Protein backbone atom coordinates (compact mmCIF):
# COMPACT_ATOMS: atom_id res chain seq x y z
CA UNK A 1 0.00 0.00 0.00
CA UNK A 2 2.63 2.51 1.05
CA UNK A 3 4.82 1.98 -1.96
CA UNK A 4 1.72 2.32 -4.13
CA UNK A 5 0.85 5.65 -2.56
CA UNK A 6 4.43 6.83 -2.91
CA UNK A 7 4.54 5.82 -6.52
CA UNK A 8 1.29 7.69 -7.12
CA UNK A 9 2.63 10.84 -5.48
CA UNK A 10 5.79 10.67 -7.58
CA UNK A 11 3.83 10.29 -10.76
CA UNK A 12 1.73 13.29 -9.86
CA UNK A 13 4.73 15.61 -9.99
CA UNK A 14 4.20 17.71 -13.09
CA UNK A 15 7.29 16.57 -14.99
CA UNK A 16 6.67 12.89 -14.26
CA UNK A 17 3.03 13.30 -15.22
CA UNK A 18 3.99 14.82 -18.57
CA UNK A 19 6.37 11.90 -19.07
CA UNK A 20 3.66 9.40 -18.24
CA UNK A 21 1.21 11.05 -20.64
CA UNK A 22 3.75 11.12 -23.50
CA UNK A 23 4.85 7.51 -23.04
CA UNK A 24 1.33 6.24 -22.38
CA UNK A 25 0.05 8.13 -25.40
CA UNK A 26 2.62 6.61 -27.72
CA UNK A 27 1.97 3.15 -26.27
CA UNK A 28 -1.73 3.52 -27.04
CA UNK A 29 -0.94 4.79 -30.53
CA UNK A 30 1.30 1.78 -31.15
CA UNK A 31 -1.28 -0.61 -29.72
CA UNK A 32 -4.23 0.72 -31.72
CA UNK A 33 -2.32 1.64 -34.86
CA UNK A 34 -4.70 -0.12 -37.28
CA UNK A 35 -7.68 1.76 -35.79
CA UNK A 36 -5.99 5.15 -35.66
CA UNK A 37 -4.17 5.27 -38.99
CA UNK A 38 -6.33 6.89 -41.68
CA UNK A 39 -4.47 5.14 -44.53
CA UNK A 40 -2.37 2.07 -45.23
CA UNK A 41 1.20 3.15 -44.30
CA UNK A 42 2.66 1.38 -47.33
CA UNK A 43 0.12 2.49 -49.96
CA UNK A 44 1.18 5.13 -52.44
CA UNK A 45 -1.51 7.80 -52.97
CA UNK A 46 -0.55 11.37 -53.94
CA UNK A 47 3.16 12.20 -53.88
CA UNK A 48 4.31 15.13 -51.71
CA UNK A 49 0.89 16.41 -50.68
CA UNK A 50 1.16 19.29 -48.20
CA UNK A 51 -0.29 18.90 -44.69
CA UNK A 52 -4.04 19.41 -44.91
CA UNK A 53 -4.37 18.51 -48.61
CA UNK A 54 -7.24 16.32 -49.67
CA UNK A 55 -6.68 12.96 -51.30
CA UNK A 56 -8.51 11.52 -54.32
CA UNK A 57 -11.05 9.81 -52.06
CA UNK A 58 -11.87 13.08 -50.28
CA UNK A 59 -9.96 12.16 -47.13
CA UNK A 60 -7.44 14.58 -45.69
CA UNK A 61 -3.68 14.05 -45.34
CA UNK A 62 -3.36 15.71 -41.95
CA UNK A 63 0.44 15.72 -42.05
CA UNK A 64 0.88 15.44 -45.82
CA UNK A 65 2.39 12.58 -47.81
CA UNK A 66 5.97 11.56 -48.56
CA UNK A 67 7.87 11.43 -51.85
CA UNK A 68 6.14 8.30 -53.06
CA UNK A 69 2.75 9.38 -51.80
CA UNK A 70 2.41 7.49 -48.54
CA UNK A 71 0.40 9.20 -45.80
CA UNK A 72 2.85 10.56 -43.20
CA UNK A 73 0.44 10.41 -40.27
CA UNK A 74 -0.23 6.72 -40.91
CA UNK A 75 3.48 6.03 -41.25
CA UNK A 76 4.14 7.85 -37.98
CA UNK A 77 1.45 5.80 -36.23
CA UNK A 78 2.79 2.50 -37.54
CA UNK A 79 6.33 3.75 -36.96
CA UNK A 80 5.50 4.01 -33.25
CA UNK A 81 4.95 0.26 -33.34
CA UNK A 82 8.29 -0.36 -35.02
CA UNK A 83 10.26 1.91 -32.70
CA UNK A 84 8.59 0.81 -29.47
CA UNK A 85 8.75 -2.93 -30.14
CA UNK A 86 12.28 -2.79 -31.46
CA UNK A 87 13.58 -0.58 -28.64
CA UNK A 88 11.85 -2.66 -25.97
CA UNK A 89 13.00 -5.97 -27.38
CA UNK A 90 16.57 -4.73 -27.77
CA UNK A 91 16.71 -3.18 -24.31
CA UNK A 92 15.14 -6.27 -22.72
CA UNK A 93 17.69 -8.64 -24.25
CA UNK A 94 20.48 -6.26 -23.23
CA UNK A 95 19.11 -6.42 -19.69
CA UNK A 96 18.98 -10.20 -19.66
CA UNK A 97 22.59 -10.47 -20.78
CA UNK A 98 23.78 -7.65 -18.49
CA UNK A 99 21.94 -8.95 -15.43
CA UNK A 100 23.16 -12.53 -15.82
CA UNK A 101 26.74 -11.39 -16.35
CA UNK A 102 26.59 -8.89 -13.51
CA UNK A 103 25.15 -11.40 -11.03
CA UNK A 104 27.74 -14.01 -11.90
CA UNK A 105 30.68 -11.58 -11.84
CA UNK A 106 29.56 -9.88 -8.64
CA UNK A 107 28.82 -13.10 -6.80
CA UNK A 108 31.75 -15.30 -7.78
CA UNK A 109 34.36 -12.56 -8.19
CA UNK A 110 37.82 -13.91 -9.04
CA UNK A 111 38.81 -14.77 -12.60
CA UNK A 112 35.37 -14.75 -14.15
CA UNK A 113 34.80 -11.26 -12.76
CA UNK A 114 38.11 -10.00 -14.17
CA UNK A 115 37.36 -11.52 -17.57
CA UNK A 116 33.80 -10.18 -17.81
CA UNK A 117 34.77 -6.74 -16.50
CA UNK A 118 37.58 -6.47 -19.03
CA UNK A 119 35.23 -7.42 -21.84
CA UNK A 120 32.71 -4.84 -20.64
CA UNK A 121 35.42 -2.16 -20.52
CA UNK A 122 36.53 -3.02 -24.02
CA UNK A 123 33.04 -2.64 -25.42
CA UNK A 124 32.42 0.54 -23.43
CA UNK A 125 35.50 2.16 -24.94
CA UNK A 126 33.76 2.00 -28.32
CA UNK A 127 31.53 4.93 -29.28
CA UNK A 128 28.15 3.18 -29.41
CA UNK A 129 27.04 4.33 -32.82
CA UNK A 130 30.38 3.33 -34.35
CA UNK A 131 30.11 -0.11 -32.72
CA UNK A 132 26.62 -0.48 -34.19
CA UNK A 133 27.85 0.56 -37.62
CA UNK A 134 30.60 -2.08 -37.51
CA UNK A 135 28.13 -4.78 -36.43
CA UNK A 136 25.49 -3.81 -39.00
CA UNK A 137 28.04 -3.70 -41.82
CA UNK A 138 29.39 -7.10 -40.76
CA UNK A 139 26.00 -8.78 -40.40
CA UNK A 140 23.59 -6.78 -42.54
CA UNK A 141 20.67 -4.52 -41.63
CA UNK A 142 17.66 -6.30 -40.16
CA UNK A 143 15.52 -6.08 -37.03
CA UNK A 144 17.31 -9.05 -35.47
CA UNK A 145 20.72 -7.53 -36.09
CA UNK A 146 19.65 -4.17 -34.69
CA UNK A 147 18.56 -5.99 -31.52
CA UNK A 148 21.84 -7.90 -31.46
CA UNK A 149 23.86 -4.71 -31.91
CA UNK A 150 21.99 -2.88 -29.15
CA UNK A 151 22.39 -5.85 -26.81
CA UNK A 152 26.08 -5.96 -27.52
CA UNK A 153 26.42 -2.23 -26.95
CA UNK A 154 24.19 -1.71 -23.88
CA UNK A 155 24.74 -4.90 -21.90
CA UNK A 156 28.16 -3.77 -20.54
CA UNK A 157 26.72 -0.70 -18.82
CA UNK A 158 23.92 -2.78 -17.24
CA UNK A 159 26.50 -5.40 -16.31
CA UNK A 160 28.48 -2.78 -14.41
CA UNK A 161 25.49 -1.56 -12.40
CA UNK A 162 24.37 -5.09 -11.49
CA UNK A 163 27.91 -6.21 -10.69
CA UNK A 164 28.49 -3.35 -8.24
CA UNK A 165 25.15 -3.89 -6.52
CA UNK A 166 25.66 -7.66 -6.36
CA UNK A 167 29.12 -7.32 -4.83
CA UNK A 168 27.59 -5.23 -2.11
CA UNK A 169 24.64 -7.52 -1.44
CA UNK A 170 26.57 -10.80 -1.69
CA UNK A 171 28.34 -10.09 1.60
CA UNK A 172 25.16 -9.42 3.58
CA UNK A 173 23.94 -11.76 6.29
CA UNK A 174 20.85 -13.07 4.52
CA UNK A 175 22.93 -14.24 1.58
CA UNK A 176 25.45 -15.90 3.89
CA UNK A 177 22.50 -17.55 5.61
CA UNK A 178 21.16 -18.78 2.28
CA UNK A 179 24.57 -20.24 1.43
CA UNK A 180 24.75 -21.95 4.83
CA UNK A 181 21.27 -23.36 4.31
CA UNK A 182 22.56 -24.95 1.13
CA UNK A 183 20.34 -23.12 -1.33
CA UNK A 184 21.36 -23.70 -4.92
CA UNK A 185 23.46 -21.03 -6.58
CA UNK A 186 20.91 -20.10 -9.26
CA UNK A 187 18.32 -19.72 -6.52
CA UNK A 188 20.58 -17.40 -4.56
CA UNK A 189 21.41 -15.35 -7.66
CA UNK A 190 17.91 -14.99 -9.05
CA UNK A 191 15.78 -15.52 -5.97
CA UNK A 192 17.74 -13.67 -3.30
CA UNK A 193 20.04 -11.14 -4.99
CA UNK A 194 18.10 -10.16 -8.11
CA UNK A 195 15.00 -8.82 -6.28
CA UNK A 196 17.30 -6.52 -4.31
CA UNK A 197 18.97 -4.94 -7.32
CA UNK A 198 15.86 -4.23 -9.39
CA UNK A 199 15.10 -0.84 -7.79
CA UNK A 200 17.86 1.20 -9.46
CA UNK A 201 17.40 -0.85 -12.62
CA UNK A 202 13.83 0.35 -13.21
CA UNK A 203 14.95 3.97 -13.55
CA UNK A 204 17.86 2.93 -15.71
CA UNK A 205 15.53 0.87 -17.91
CA UNK A 206 13.39 3.92 -18.74
CA UNK A 207 16.43 6.02 -19.59
CA UNK A 208 18.07 3.29 -21.61
CA UNK A 209 14.87 2.64 -23.53
CA UNK A 210 14.98 6.29 -24.58
CA UNK A 211 18.64 6.10 -25.62
CA UNK A 212 17.95 2.91 -27.54
CA UNK A 213 15.13 4.68 -29.36
CA UNK A 214 17.57 7.50 -30.20
CA UNK A 215 20.12 4.99 -31.49
CA UNK A 216 17.59 3.11 -33.58
CA UNK A 217 16.48 6.49 -34.93
CA UNK A 218 20.07 7.47 -35.70
CA UNK A 219 20.70 4.16 -37.49
CA UNK A 220 17.53 4.73 -39.50
CA UNK A 221 18.65 8.27 -40.26
CA UNK A 222 21.97 6.94 -41.56
CA UNK A 223 20.13 4.44 -43.75
CA UNK A 224 21.52 1.52 -41.74
CA UNK A 225 18.37 0.69 -39.80
CA UNK A 226 15.47 -1.44 -40.90
CA UNK A 227 15.30 -2.12 -44.61
CA UNK A 228 12.48 -0.19 -46.40
CA UNK A 229 9.50 -0.03 -46.65
CA UNK A 230 9.01 -0.65 -42.90
CA UNK A 231 7.65 2.56 -41.38
CA UNK A 232 10.39 3.79 -39.04
CA UNK A 233 10.86 7.37 -37.81
CA UNK A 234 14.60 7.57 -38.38
CA UNK A 235 14.30 6.17 -41.90
CA UNK A 236 11.52 8.68 -42.67
CA UNK A 237 13.93 11.53 -41.86
CA UNK A 238 16.57 9.90 -44.05
CA UNK A 239 14.19 9.52 -46.99
CA UNK A 240 12.84 13.04 -46.72
CA UNK A 241 16.15 14.77 -46.10
CA UNK A 242 17.05 15.63 -49.69
CA UNK A 243 13.61 17.17 -50.28
CA UNK A 244 13.38 18.86 -46.90
CA UNK A 245 14.14 22.32 -48.23
CA UNK A 246 10.96 22.39 -50.32
CA UNK A 247 8.91 20.04 -48.14
CA UNK A 248 9.88 20.47 -44.48
CA UNK A 249 6.89 18.41 -43.36
CA UNK A 250 8.66 15.26 -44.56
CA UNK A 251 11.22 15.47 -41.77
CA UNK A 252 9.76 17.67 -39.02
CA UNK A 253 6.95 15.36 -37.93
CA UNK A 254 9.06 12.19 -37.50
CA UNK A 255 11.58 14.27 -35.53
CA UNK A 256 8.83 15.59 -33.26
CA UNK A 257 7.57 12.03 -32.77
CA UNK A 258 10.90 10.58 -31.67
CA UNK A 259 11.79 13.60 -29.53
CA UNK A 260 8.48 13.43 -27.66
CA UNK A 261 8.79 9.69 -27.03
CA UNK A 262 12.35 9.95 -25.68
CA UNK A 263 11.51 13.04 -23.66
CA UNK A 264 8.57 11.17 -22.12
CA UNK A 265 10.81 8.29 -21.12
CA UNK A 266 13.45 10.62 -19.62
CA UNK A 267 10.87 12.60 -17.64
CA UNK A 268 9.33 9.38 -16.38
CA UNK A 269 12.75 8.12 -15.28
CA UNK A 270 13.42 11.46 -13.63
CA UNK A 271 10.13 11.19 -11.75
CA UNK A 272 10.66 7.57 -10.72
CA UNK A 273 14.10 8.37 -9.39
CA UNK A 274 12.27 10.43 -6.78
CA UNK A 275 13.67 13.10 -4.57
CA UNK A 276 15.87 11.05 -2.28
CA UNK A 277 18.02 9.69 -5.07
CA UNK A 278 18.30 12.93 -6.96
CA UNK A 279 21.67 13.98 -5.69
Amino acid at each position, binding site marked *: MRTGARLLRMLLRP*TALIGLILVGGWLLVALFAPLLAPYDPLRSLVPLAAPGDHGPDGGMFLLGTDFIGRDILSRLIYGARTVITLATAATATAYMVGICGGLVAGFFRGRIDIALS*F*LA*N*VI*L*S*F*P*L*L*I*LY*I*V*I*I*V*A*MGASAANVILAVTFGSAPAIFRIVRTLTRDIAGRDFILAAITLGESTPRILFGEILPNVTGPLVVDFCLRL*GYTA*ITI*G*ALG*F*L*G*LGLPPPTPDW*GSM*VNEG*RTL*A*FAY*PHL*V*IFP*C*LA*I*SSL*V*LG*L*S*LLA*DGLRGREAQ*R
Partner: protein
Amino acid sequence: MIVVKRLVNAILTMLAVSFLVFLLLELNIGEVAVKVLGQFSTPDQRHAWLQQNGYFDPFLLRYLRWLGGFVTGHWGVSTYYREDILVLLIPRLAASGILATATLAVMIPIALFSGILAGIREGSVLDRGLSVAAVVTTSIPEFASAVFFTAVFVFWLGWLPGVSTMAGGLDLKEYLMPVAVLVMASCGYVARMTRASMVEVMASPYIRTARLKGVPLRRIILRHALRNALLAPVTVIMLQIPWLLSGVVVVEVFFAYQGFGTLLYQAALNSDIYLIEACAMMSVMTVVGSQIVADIITLRLNPRLAAPARAAS
Protein backbone atom coordinates in the same frame (compact mmCIF):
# COMPACT_ATOMS: atom_id res chain seq x y z
CA MET B 1 52.50 4.43 -11.20
CA ILE B 2 48.80 4.78 -11.81
CA VAL B 3 49.47 6.32 -15.20
CA VAL B 4 51.70 3.40 -16.23
CA LYS B 5 49.03 0.94 -15.13
CA ARG B 6 46.48 2.88 -17.11
CA LEU B 7 48.69 2.86 -20.18
CA VAL B 8 49.08 -0.91 -20.03
CA ASN B 9 45.34 -1.25 -19.60
CA ALA B 10 44.74 1.07 -22.56
CA ILE B 11 47.02 -0.98 -24.80
CA LEU B 12 45.28 -4.20 -23.75
CA THR B 13 41.90 -2.59 -24.47
CA MET B 14 42.97 -1.50 -27.92
CA LEU B 15 44.34 -4.97 -28.70
CA ALA B 16 41.04 -6.52 -27.64
CA VAL B 17 39.06 -4.01 -29.70
CA SER B 18 41.22 -4.61 -32.76
CA PHE B 19 40.67 -8.35 -32.41
CA LEU B 20 36.92 -7.82 -32.04
CA VAL B 21 36.73 -5.59 -35.11
CA PHE B 22 38.83 -7.96 -37.17
CA LEU B 23 36.74 -10.91 -36.03
CA LEU B 24 33.49 -9.19 -36.96
CA LEU B 25 34.59 -7.93 -40.35
CA GLU B 26 37.06 -10.51 -41.64
CA LEU B 27 36.17 -13.90 -40.18
CA ASN B 28 34.01 -14.83 -43.13
CA ILE B 29 36.47 -14.59 -46.03
CA GLY B 30 33.79 -15.31 -48.63
CA GLU B 31 32.04 -12.09 -47.62
CA VAL B 32 35.31 -10.17 -47.54
CA ALA B 33 35.88 -11.09 -51.17
CA VAL B 34 32.36 -9.98 -52.12
CA LYS B 35 32.76 -6.67 -50.28
CA VAL B 36 36.16 -5.91 -51.77
CA LEU B 37 35.61 -7.15 -55.33
CA GLY B 38 31.93 -6.20 -55.56
CA GLN B 39 28.69 -8.08 -56.12
CA PHE B 40 29.41 -8.85 -59.74
CA SER B 41 32.76 -10.55 -59.39
CA THR B 42 32.88 -14.23 -60.42
CA PRO B 43 33.64 -16.99 -57.91
CA ASP B 44 36.91 -17.65 -59.74
CA GLN B 45 38.02 -14.05 -59.40
CA ARG B 46 37.17 -14.09 -55.71
CA HIS B 47 39.07 -17.30 -55.15
CA ALA B 48 42.13 -15.99 -56.98
CA TRP B 49 42.01 -12.71 -55.07
CA LEU B 50 41.71 -14.50 -51.73
CA GLN B 51 44.61 -16.76 -52.64
CA GLN B 52 46.76 -13.86 -53.77
CA ASN B 53 46.20 -11.89 -50.58
CA GLY B 54 46.83 -14.76 -48.22
CA TYR B 55 43.26 -15.11 -47.02
CA PHE B 56 43.56 -18.88 -46.83
CA ASP B 57 46.09 -18.58 -44.03
CA PRO B 58 44.90 -19.34 -40.48
CA PHE B 59 42.74 -16.64 -38.90
CA LEU B 60 45.21 -15.80 -36.14
CA LEU B 61 48.06 -15.40 -38.60
CA ARG B 62 45.92 -13.05 -40.69
CA TYR B 63 45.03 -11.05 -37.59
CA LEU B 64 48.66 -10.68 -36.54
CA ARG B 65 49.64 -9.62 -40.05
CA TRP B 66 46.82 -7.05 -40.11
CA LEU B 67 47.81 -5.79 -36.66
CA GLY B 68 51.44 -5.50 -37.70
CA GLY B 69 50.40 -3.51 -40.75
CA PHE B 70 48.24 -1.27 -38.64
CA VAL B 71 50.98 -0.52 -36.13
CA THR B 72 53.49 0.31 -38.86
CA GLY B 73 51.06 2.61 -40.65
CA HIS B 74 50.10 0.32 -43.53
CA TRP B 75 46.36 0.65 -43.30
CA GLY B 76 45.56 -0.62 -46.74
CA VAL B 77 43.65 0.95 -49.59
CA SER B 78 40.03 2.00 -49.45
CA THR B 79 37.99 -0.08 -51.88
CA TYR B 80 35.50 2.74 -52.44
CA TYR B 81 37.80 5.78 -52.68
CA ARG B 82 40.69 3.79 -54.20
CA GLU B 83 43.12 5.74 -52.08
CA ASP B 84 45.55 4.99 -49.29
CA ILE B 85 43.53 5.04 -46.08
CA LEU B 86 46.09 6.95 -44.05
CA VAL B 87 46.19 9.75 -46.64
CA LEU B 88 42.39 9.76 -46.78
CA LEU B 89 41.90 9.76 -43.05
CA ILE B 90 44.25 12.49 -41.82
CA PRO B 91 42.51 15.58 -43.27
CA ARG B 92 39.14 14.14 -42.23
CA LEU B 93 40.34 13.60 -38.67
CA ALA B 94 41.62 17.16 -38.58
CA ALA B 95 38.24 18.47 -39.75
CA SER B 96 36.39 16.47 -37.09
CA GLY B 97 38.95 17.60 -34.54
CA ILE B 98 38.03 21.22 -35.26
CA LEU B 99 34.34 20.41 -34.89
CA ALA B 100 34.84 18.51 -31.63
CA THR B 101 37.14 21.15 -30.16
CA ALA B 102 34.68 23.91 -30.98
CA THR B 103 31.90 21.87 -29.39
CA LEU B 104 33.88 21.27 -26.21
CA ALA B 105 34.94 24.93 -26.06
CA VAL B 106 31.30 26.01 -26.09
CA MET B 107 29.83 23.12 -24.11
CA ILE B 108 32.19 23.03 -21.12
CA PRO B 109 31.66 26.62 -19.91
CA ILE B 110 27.88 26.42 -20.37
CA ALA B 111 27.60 23.03 -18.66
CA LEU B 112 29.89 23.88 -15.73
CA PHE B 113 28.33 27.29 -15.15
CA SER B 114 24.73 26.07 -15.21
CA GLY B 115 25.61 22.98 -13.16
CA ILE B 116 27.28 25.08 -10.46
CA LEU B 117 24.43 27.60 -10.41
CA ALA B 118 21.91 24.77 -10.02
CA GLY B 119 23.95 23.03 -7.36
CA ILE B 120 24.47 26.01 -5.06
CA ARG B 121 21.00 25.72 -3.66
CA GLU B 122 19.50 22.26 -4.07
CA GLY B 123 15.81 22.23 -4.85
CA SER B 124 15.55 25.94 -5.72
CA VAL B 125 13.44 27.08 -8.65
CA LEU B 126 16.62 27.71 -10.65
CA ASP B 127 17.80 24.18 -9.82
CA ARG B 128 14.56 22.54 -10.91
CA GLY B 129 14.39 24.66 -14.04
CA LEU B 130 17.94 23.86 -15.12
CA SER B 131 17.46 20.16 -14.36
CA VAL B 132 14.35 19.96 -16.52
CA ALA B 133 16.13 21.87 -19.28
CA ALA B 134 18.98 19.36 -19.08
CA VAL B 135 16.54 16.43 -19.39
CA VAL B 136 14.81 18.03 -22.36
CA THR B 137 17.99 18.81 -24.30
CA THR B 138 19.51 15.36 -23.80
CA SER B 139 16.27 13.70 -24.92
CA ILE B 140 16.28 15.19 -28.40
CA PRO B 141 18.27 13.06 -30.84
CA GLU B 142 21.01 14.90 -32.75
CA PHE B 143 19.32 14.39 -36.10
CA ALA B 144 16.07 15.79 -34.72
CA SER B 145 17.61 18.94 -33.26
CA ALA B 146 19.51 19.36 -36.53
CA VAL B 147 16.16 19.27 -38.34
CA PHE B 148 14.62 21.76 -35.89
CA PHE B 149 17.55 24.19 -36.11
CA THR B 150 17.53 23.92 -39.89
CA ALA B 151 13.79 24.53 -40.00
CA VAL B 152 14.13 27.72 -37.95
CA PHE B 153 17.43 29.22 -39.08
CA VAL B 154 17.54 28.07 -42.70
CA PHE B 155 13.97 27.65 -43.94
CA TRP B 156 12.19 30.21 -41.81
CA LEU B 157 14.63 32.97 -40.95
CA GLY B 158 17.11 32.27 -43.73
CA TRP B 159 20.06 33.34 -41.60
CA LEU B 160 22.34 30.34 -41.94
CA PRO B 161 23.45 28.00 -44.72
CA GLY B 162 21.81 24.56 -44.62
CA VAL B 163 24.99 22.61 -45.34
CA SER B 164 28.49 22.82 -43.90
CA THR B 165 30.61 21.48 -46.73
CA MET B 166 33.21 24.23 -46.16
CA ALA B 167 33.49 24.47 -49.94
CA GLY B 168 34.82 28.01 -49.73
CA GLY B 169 37.29 27.37 -46.92
CA LEU B 170 36.53 27.40 -43.22
CA ASP B 171 33.43 29.46 -42.59
CA LEU B 172 32.28 30.36 -39.10
CA LYS B 173 28.66 30.60 -40.22
CA GLU B 174 28.72 27.02 -41.42
CA TYR B 175 30.03 25.86 -38.05
CA LEU B 176 27.23 27.44 -36.00
CA MET B 177 24.55 24.80 -36.49
CA PRO B 178 26.66 21.63 -36.23
CA VAL B 179 28.28 22.96 -33.06
CA ALA B 180 24.94 24.05 -31.62
CA VAL B 181 23.45 20.59 -32.21
CA LEU B 182 26.40 18.82 -30.58
CA VAL B 183 26.47 21.23 -27.64
CA MET B 184 22.78 20.71 -27.05
CA ALA B 185 23.11 16.94 -27.06
CA SER B 186 26.11 16.76 -24.73
CA CYS B 187 25.58 19.74 -22.43
CA GLY B 188 22.77 18.38 -20.26
CA TYR B 189 24.59 15.33 -18.96
CA VAL B 190 27.72 17.23 -17.96
CA ALA B 191 25.60 19.94 -16.33
CA ARG B 192 23.69 17.37 -14.28
CA MET B 193 26.90 15.70 -13.11
CA THR B 194 28.40 19.07 -12.18
CA ARG B 195 25.26 19.89 -10.27
CA ALA B 196 25.36 16.60 -8.36
CA SER B 197 29.00 17.15 -7.49
CA MET B 198 28.34 20.75 -6.39
CA VAL B 199 25.37 19.70 -4.24
CA GLU B 200 27.55 17.14 -2.51
CA VAL B 201 30.34 19.62 -1.85
CA MET B 202 27.95 22.30 -0.59
CA ALA B 203 26.59 19.81 1.95
CA SER B 204 30.03 18.87 3.28
CA PRO B 205 31.19 19.89 6.78
CA TYR B 206 33.99 22.22 5.67
CA ILE B 207 31.55 24.37 3.73
CA ARG B 208 29.28 24.50 6.74
CA THR B 209 32.23 25.57 8.86
CA ALA B 210 33.05 28.34 6.41
CA ARG B 211 29.43 29.47 6.47
CA LEU B 212 29.30 29.46 10.26
CA LYS B 213 32.49 31.53 10.34
CA GLY B 214 30.63 34.10 8.30
CA VAL B 215 32.55 33.82 5.05
CA PRO B 216 30.49 35.45 2.27
CA LEU B 217 28.76 32.99 -0.07
CA ARG B 218 30.61 34.24 -3.13
CA ARG B 219 33.96 33.56 -1.46
CA ILE B 220 32.85 30.16 -0.21
CA ILE B 221 31.90 29.11 -3.69
CA LEU B 222 34.91 30.53 -5.50
CA ARG B 223 37.61 29.64 -3.01
CA HIS B 224 36.35 26.54 -1.22
CA ALA B 225 33.73 24.70 -3.20
CA LEU B 226 34.71 24.98 -6.87
CA ARG B 227 38.00 23.09 -6.83
CA ASN B 228 36.44 20.02 -5.26
CA ALA B 229 33.20 20.31 -7.17
CA LEU B 230 35.02 20.36 -10.50
CA LEU B 231 36.83 17.05 -9.91
CA ALA B 232 33.95 14.85 -11.01
CA PRO B 233 32.98 16.88 -14.12
CA VAL B 234 36.50 16.56 -15.56
CA THR B 235 36.10 12.81 -15.68
CA VAL B 236 32.54 13.14 -16.93
CA ILE B 237 33.58 15.44 -19.78
CA MET B 238 36.23 12.97 -20.87
CA LEU B 239 33.77 10.09 -20.62
CA GLN B 240 31.41 12.17 -22.74
CA ILE B 241 33.81 11.91 -25.67
CA PRO B 242 32.50 8.55 -26.94
CA TRP B 243 28.98 10.03 -26.97
CA LEU B 244 30.31 13.11 -28.72
CA LEU B 245 31.92 10.91 -31.38
CA SER B 246 28.64 9.11 -32.04
CA GLY B 247 26.95 12.50 -32.35
CA VAL B 248 29.69 13.77 -34.64
CA VAL B 249 28.89 11.00 -37.14
CA VAL B 250 25.21 11.97 -37.29
CA VAL B 251 25.85 15.72 -37.40
CA GLU B 252 28.54 15.48 -40.07
CA VAL B 253 26.28 13.37 -42.25
CA PHE B 254 23.37 15.74 -41.75
CA PHE B 255 25.31 18.89 -42.62
CA ALA B 256 27.51 17.17 -45.23
CA TYR B 257 30.60 18.22 -43.25
CA GLN B 258 33.66 16.51 -44.73
CA GLY B 259 35.04 14.91 -41.59
CA PHE B 260 35.72 11.55 -40.05
CA GLY B 261 32.00 10.85 -39.58
CA THR B 262 31.02 11.24 -43.22
CA LEU B 263 34.00 9.10 -44.18
CA LEU B 264 32.82 6.32 -41.86
CA TYR B 265 29.29 6.77 -43.20
CA GLN B 266 30.41 6.40 -46.81
CA ALA B 267 32.51 3.42 -45.80
CA ALA B 268 29.51 1.80 -44.10
CA LEU B 269 27.17 2.38 -47.04
CA ASN B 270 29.70 0.88 -49.44
CA SER B 271 30.90 -1.98 -47.20
CA ASP B 272 34.41 -0.57 -47.41
CA ILE B 273 35.69 -2.85 -44.65
CA TYR B 274 39.34 -1.74 -44.51
CA LEU B 275 38.26 1.87 -44.12
CA ILE B 276 35.73 0.89 -41.43
CA GLU B 277 38.43 -0.97 -39.54
CA ALA B 278 40.70 2.06 -39.64
CA CYS B 279 37.87 4.40 -38.55
CA ALA B 280 36.87 2.10 -35.70
CA MET B 281 40.46 1.90 -34.48
CA MET B 282 40.85 5.68 -34.67
CA SER B 283 37.71 6.26 -32.63
CA VAL B 284 38.78 3.77 -29.97
CA MET B 285 42.22 5.39 -29.84
CA THR B 286 40.53 8.74 -29.28
CA VAL B 287 38.37 7.37 -26.49
CA VAL B 288 41.19 5.54 -24.74
CA GLY B 289 43.45 8.56 -25.13
CA SER B 290 40.82 10.84 -23.59
CA GLN B 291 40.48 8.47 -20.65
CA ILE B 292 44.21 8.71 -19.98
CA VAL B 293 44.05 12.51 -20.20
CA ALA B 294 41.14 12.43 -17.74
CA ASP B 295 43.23 10.38 -15.32
CA ILE B 296 46.16 12.76 -15.56
CA ILE B 297 43.97 15.83 -14.98
CA THR B 298 42.25 14.16 -12.03
CA LEU B 299 45.62 13.34 -10.49
CA ARG B 300 46.69 16.96 -10.94
CA LEU B 301 43.56 18.26 -9.26
CA ASN B 302 43.56 15.68 -6.51
CA PRO B 303 47.12 14.63 -5.60
CA ARG B 304 45.83 12.34 -2.86
CA LEU B 305 44.98 9.77 -5.52
CA ALA B 306 48.61 9.51 -6.62
CA ALA B 307 49.79 8.37 -3.19
CA PRO B 308 49.89 4.59 -2.77
CA ALA B 309 46.58 3.45 -1.32
CA ARG B 310 47.18 3.38 2.41
CA ALA B 311 43.60 3.06 3.51
CA ALA B 312 42.32 0.06 1.61
CA SER B 313 39.21 1.12 -0.27
